[in-house]
């Protein structure tokens, strides 16, 4: 993380945090003073310290989600100063350090905003809409075997690398929060591409993209306007090239579905 100062002296900031007691309840911003912070503490550690203070006063601590605290689980989702995961490129909130701020700064912290991500409490949102999209097609049905079997199907290095880029998605939802339209296309395209790039993913390639996009639409996410705010906010810097890839896959699958022959015996076998 790029530090905006190399100073080791402690800093004090004002936090303006979104407080909301529960789903469908009115929320509001509340200011908290965070004093004498170590610049090397992470943003989440700072919130822990602020919460200690709040708890000692007998008030309700700020609810925020977190798990791994090393940028791999995608749980610590909040918007800091108008940008998902705060300032800096390619980091999650848990990888943001207080040295990125200046003494005296006002820091606005709010949950990821999107109709499809309802607030559960304070900074925590319900992102199960992503799970519904995954359930619609984010998998490969065939048994792919144990680890040694993986090497029995050759995968071109280029495809494996590209699939790995897409697979870096941690499903945090920053793309949705960053998008003016709350579109989930970066997330969905990463998942579609990750599986569609592998030989094992080919049989279900058309079905997968059609099902995942249709579920994405049904979940109430917006539509991409090619402004690429998503990839700029992504903690894994996933490229919006995957959106182009998904668009192509979706259109091909839609047109192919008109001409692809179907067997007369569909319904036979273990359907």
């Amino acid at each position: 993380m790029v530090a905006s100062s190399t100073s080791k002296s402690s800093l004090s900031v004002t936090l303006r945090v979104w407080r909301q007691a529960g789903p469908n309840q009115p929320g509001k911003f509340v200011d908290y003073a965070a004093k004498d912070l170590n610049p090397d503490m992470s943003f989440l550690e700072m919130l822990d310290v602020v919460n200690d203070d709040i708890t000692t006063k007998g008030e309700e601590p700020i609810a925020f989600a977190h798990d791994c605290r090393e940028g791999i689980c995608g749980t610590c989702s909040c918007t800091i100063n108008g940008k998902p995961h705060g300032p800096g490129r390619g980091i999650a909130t848990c990888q943001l350090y207080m040295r990125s701020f200046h003494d005296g700064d006002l820091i606005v912290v709010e949950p990821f905003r999107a109709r499809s991500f309802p607030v559960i409490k304070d900074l925590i949102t319900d992102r199960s809409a992503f799970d519904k999209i995954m359930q619609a097609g984010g998998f490969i049905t065939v048994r792919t075997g144990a680890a040694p079997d993986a090497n029995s199907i050759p995968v071109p290095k280029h495809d494996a690398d590209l699939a790995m880029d897409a697979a870096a998605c941690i499903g945090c939802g920053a793309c949705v929060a960053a998008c003016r339209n709350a579109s989930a296309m970066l997330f969905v395209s990463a998942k579609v591409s990750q599986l569609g790039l592998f030989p094992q993913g080919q049989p279900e390639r058309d079905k997968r993209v059609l099902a995942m996009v249709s579920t994405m639409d049904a979940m109430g996410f917006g539509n991409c306007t090619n402004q690429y705010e998503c990839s700029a906010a992504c903690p894994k810097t996933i490229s919006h090239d995957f959106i182009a890839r998904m668009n192509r896959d979706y259109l091909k699958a839609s047109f192919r579905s008109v001409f692809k022959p179907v067997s007369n015996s569909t319904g036979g076998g273990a359907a």
Partner: protein
Amino acid sequence: MSLAGNLFHSSIGRKFLMALTGLILVGFVVGHLVGNLQIFQDPDHINGYAAFLHQMGPLLWVARIVLLISVGIHIWAATALALENKQARTGNGPATAKHWIQATLSSRFVRWTGYVVLAFVIYHLAQFTLGVAGSAQFKENLPRYVMAADYRVAGFPVIKAGAEVLDVHSMVILGFQNPIVSVFYIIAVGLLSFHLLHGIDSFFQTMGWRSAKWSGALRKLTLVFCLAYFLGNLAIPGSVLTGMKGLREGFRAPSTSRTARR
């Protein structure tokens, strides 16, 4: 879902329709500009060209209907998607002001440039096709032009010398001698060029043909195209306004027109 269902109801389907109709419209505006630039040749050219297009009869109507449907689908898709986008954002508390990270200026104004272009297209048709605005200078109300030479398309003389045709040349120049008309025209084509700066880039992304490998080159090509398109369009009202391009020799305003009475 069926193919039509996918195209007209899904997010990507409607973006595809917008891209496809956008491409048809780009094809039209480029062809239209190339045709119009004939105004810089002698009046036989643009007048012969206009007479030739009108002579196409049913084909002209096919082209008009395709364009009308394209405009309809393009705007319908843009509006439907935008309304959904607004919905997808709301209903979850007030967000702090949108913090733009890397979205281009042209992308942020694409809808508004689109609507202004639509308003312009309506005015433009009223002026030069229907003769509702500025009717004293409308081609039907001007003296006929007599072709001095054949107008040829691919070597074939499609409009013969001596033919009496509508005087589009004089209509356009009289129209643009009004600074308000010219300035509105220049602003509108400027906004259209700005619309296309995002539109053409988007076209490739929507079709799935854009990637980081050549997106820099695509952006530059798009910029050059839009700039050339704007300058080409600027040339016509610009040269009339600055007096570089005047009425043709032998043009006489009809006696019924206001200019003649004064």
